[in-house]
């Protein structure tokens, strides 16, 4: 059913007239032109499509767009403030915590959500919190290091 859907996307209000059952991932990638969230599996199995909804990491490949009505959505494109990279983005660069980069947006946003809930996570908490996000290049050890480093810069997930 086509309906009017309004939500905040990367700090700006968007109004859409769409079929509310369509998955957020595809609406973001096509209707809204934000290609940071990636398709990896379509079945909530890999985490490549992770975005933040009200600060919480969600898998956009299986989230109907009608469910973000009135909420605040952040994609990787919206994470850096006015030009300044988020500490997690910086830490991923500084720790070379990526290779092909396809899982990276999802990894960073998942970590962001983790740090909001657990600002000073132990290594075990990072591994447990991140375990559903997959990286075939095998950059896990560096991602853990990057999140540890960023957690020292971040207060409750905000700069």
């Amino acid at each position, binding site marked *: 059913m086509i309906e009017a859907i309004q939500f905040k996307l990367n700090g700006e209000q968007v109004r859409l007239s769409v079929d509310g059952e369509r998955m957020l991932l595809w609406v973001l990638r096509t209707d809204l032109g934000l290609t940071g969230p990636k398709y990896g599996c379509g079945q909530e199995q890999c985490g490549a499509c992770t975005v933040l909804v009200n600060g919480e990491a969600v898998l956009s490949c299986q989230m109907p767009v009608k469910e973000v009505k009135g909420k605040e959505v952040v994609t990787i494109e919206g994470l850096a403030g006015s030009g300044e990279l988020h500490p997690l983005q910086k830490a991923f660069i500084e720790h*070379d915590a990526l290779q092909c980069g396809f899982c990276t947006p999802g990894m960073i946003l998942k970590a962001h959500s983790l740090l909001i809930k657990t600002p000073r996570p132990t290594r075990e908490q990072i591994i447990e919190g991140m375990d559903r996000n997959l990286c075939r290049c*095998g950059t896990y050890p560096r991602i853990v290091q990057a999140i540890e480093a960023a957690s020292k810069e971040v207060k409750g997930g905000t700069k």
Partner: protein
Amino acid sequence: MNRREFLKRIGVLGGGVIVYFTYGIPLAKAQTARGDLPAFNAFLRIGADGRIACYTGKIEMGQGVITSLAQMAADELNAPFDAIDMTMGDTDLCPWDRGTWGSMTTRFFGPKLREAAAEARAVLLEMAAESLHVPLDRLVAEDGAIFDRTQKSNRITYAQLTKGKVIERHLKGKAVLEDVSKFTVVGKPFLRSDALDKVTGKAEYAGDIRLPGMLYAAILRPPAHGAVLKTVNLSGAKQMLGVVVVQDGDLIAVLHEHPDKALEALTKIRAEFEPSKSTLDDKNIHDHLLSVASEGSIVKQGGSLETGRSLAADLFESTYVNGYVAHAPMETHTALAEVKDGKATIWASTQTPFGVRDQVAGTLGMSSADVRVKPVFVGGGFGGKSASRQALEAARLAKLTGRPVQVAWSREEEFFYDTFMPAAIVKVRSGVNASGSIVLWDYTVCFAGSDGADLFYNVPHHKEISCGSWQGSGGSHPVGTGPWRAPATNTNSFARESQMDIMAAKVGKDPVEFRMAHLEDERMRRVLEAAARKFGWKPSRAPSGRGCGVACGIRSGAYVATMAAVEVDKSTGRVQVKRVVHAQDMGLVINPEGAKQQVEGCIVMGLGYALREEIRFKNGEILDLNFDTYQIPRFSWTPAIETVLIEEDSAPQGGGEPPIVCVGAVLANAVFDAVGARVYRFPMTPDRILAAMKGA
């Protein structure tokens, strides 16, 4: 394209030095693609804007050559690292290349790039001598400029030198290379130059390109390999608003401006298929493969097997087996195609942009010169994106619809059409004499391929045979197979290194000591020693109960020794890898940080084929189609990884493949050391470990 057009396209009409070079690829191909241009397949230009551009048909898929190649060019040219622009995999701008695989970029392209840069520097020095009125031997090149050693202010930049002049050189013979000891960029750890784009979402992959009017395609697929379409009813899909339906021979697709709507339309197609005639599955595949295996060819031999047998006091016969393993890159095969005004433009996740260009040209009945494959970041390849069926599908659909078309495979299509690491069998018969020396090595590998089958241990009587390649031969494999990170070498290392440990255990020797006793190659001895030192290896006869393992290998010119410590839960058979130490001699290390990244990535990826990954299939149907049942390594599987890179000034070797080749073997040996049970089949699932423990 004529010469002037070419120079214009690469931006040197305003002046520049351009050095053309070749690196061991048939020239005929390069020439046909370039028309009247001279024969070359790579080039470097120093422009009047001071930028240094390197054009290569190689691609970046995460392995990091975008950084390491730039490091090499920077040092040889005495230019800052960030003055280098890498243009990779654009078939109109970059000269022909066979493909990015086999850990070959640094090994074969790298040295030639250095020579081209050295030649360019020589040209710039000559130009500076003339322009500064200073003899050559007083000139110093540094940081993108040249100055008089005796008067530093008498200085000119590369940009000033090249302005308004076009100088072309063809690299012939060997250029005088900079002494490695003078390098300031090579050998230093550099962070990835593509990282900023990748952490901000700016990096564009094939699926991220948007063109006006583009359509997203969903293609009707058979339920099984070998299933044949009997009837199809497209009316349901045709009734959906905004759906374009294409039926062209074997290609039936529905297209829409939204990819999810195209997928929805696909569910409205009613199709009936004749089932596949294949009777094969993941249980009977190895018997089938052995029954169709050819006689094979000799990889290496020495002495006489008969003599070896007569000298042997103990004989050991083993069969090692692995199933099909998926590449499973996070980005599925994706392509966007536009066919307009007699030209086709393709953006594709591929390891072979020039192969795609020629195949698209063939499919559309165009000349290769009218097809351009444009560069995009590739979201992981591992060998699996050497085949690029999706690009041909996109090209066909673009031509048929007259609109740009994206084909992005679903994860299910990715598993279905993957060109898996082939299922394979290795049979080894070996023997030791009364004093514990190996005297016999009778080795046959079927369907994995010959890479890594040649024995590097010192055995007087040996013969290594390979039958069937990893591509299989007519009727052998019921599913797609192809190169998988370090083709054949994972399988061959598993067999060789397991067999070494079996013999060591029988003669009561420590596995490292036993290997050393059979190693003459100084490089391998040094690598093994380095691994043992870092690991803190304490000699013991296996099984010691500690869960420690060792394995050695050679791949892409690099020597590796891997050690691991594992814990095996004896009630469940589950393995947790605690620690991996990997020592590697890869010659001159261009980017130590990048090399370590590759080591870590290989160790993590290797856990999959060793412990969990195997495609289940039956009658042509692929049963594992997503990550719910096909489990790949996760954060929680990952051990502590320590890398030792041996300092070497010799020629740089491969780095993207060598660290993976021993991961399976070292874990098989560590599991044996932990529980005294040997697993002869990959992956070593909990069930298989428990079964081996029962039999032990």
